[in-house]
């Protein structure tokens, strides 16, 4: 399991509609983040990588994707201090792979909630 929705469930307090809305936001918006940071990396725009990653960080917390946290921290640190395109690319690919698997889980959960 890549995701843990206990924080989201606590916020929702039994409101499935809210959970579905939040899941759909993450499912729809997160690929845009990867598109943006990969584009920024190709342009060596490290400031943009840092700010986009900083912005997306809490959304991973909402979905309980705890394993993403150290990767996100490392991407931010690399974009500010090291600025190494090869290692940044590796980190981004690793995070994206993990996120794709997490999104698969979230889609299943959303579909289950929608059929209830």
């Amino acid at each position: 399991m890549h995701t843990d929705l206990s924080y989201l469930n606590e916020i929702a307090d039994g409101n499935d509609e809210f959970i579905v809305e939040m899941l759909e936001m993450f499912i729809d918006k997160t690929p845009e983040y990867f598109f943006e940071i990969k584009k920024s990396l190709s342009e060596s725009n490290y400031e943009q990588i840092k700010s986009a990653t900083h912005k997306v960080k809490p959304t991973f917390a909402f979905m309980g994707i705890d394993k993403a946290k150290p990767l996100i921290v490392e991407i931010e640190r690399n974009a500010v201090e090291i600025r190494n395109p090869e290692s940044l690319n590796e980190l981004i690919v690793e995070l994206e792979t993990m996120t794709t698997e997490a999104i698969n889980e979230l889609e299943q959960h959303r579909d289950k909630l929608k059929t209830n």
Partner: protein
Amino acid sequence: MKILVVDDEEMMIKTIEFHLKKLGHEVVTSSDGKEAMDKIEQENPDLIISDIMMPFMSGFELLSLVKTDPNRKIPVMLISSLDEIQVIDTAIEIGADDFIIKPINLNELTLRVNRFSHKTE
């Protein structure tokens, strides 16, 4: 209370809005500081809850504009990440009334908002 929530992250806005409405507050939202200034004019909120890092105008700039407006005394609570914690001193200097750290603990948010709620009663 009427509360203006300012954040450029949609899920964060949605969460805070959902929770505050559950507590019975009226919520107005904005996704950046510039738009927030317009909302302040139009809505005259009792409390502003704002993120720090945002496009066009940071939470600090927004805070500074609100605190230097002689016609309004609106309390401002800033939302900060743990890695921004060192900026709290700066925010207090500018006049921030309170802070909350991301990921937001909802009980803490309730307690902090209630403090302002009692002041406006």
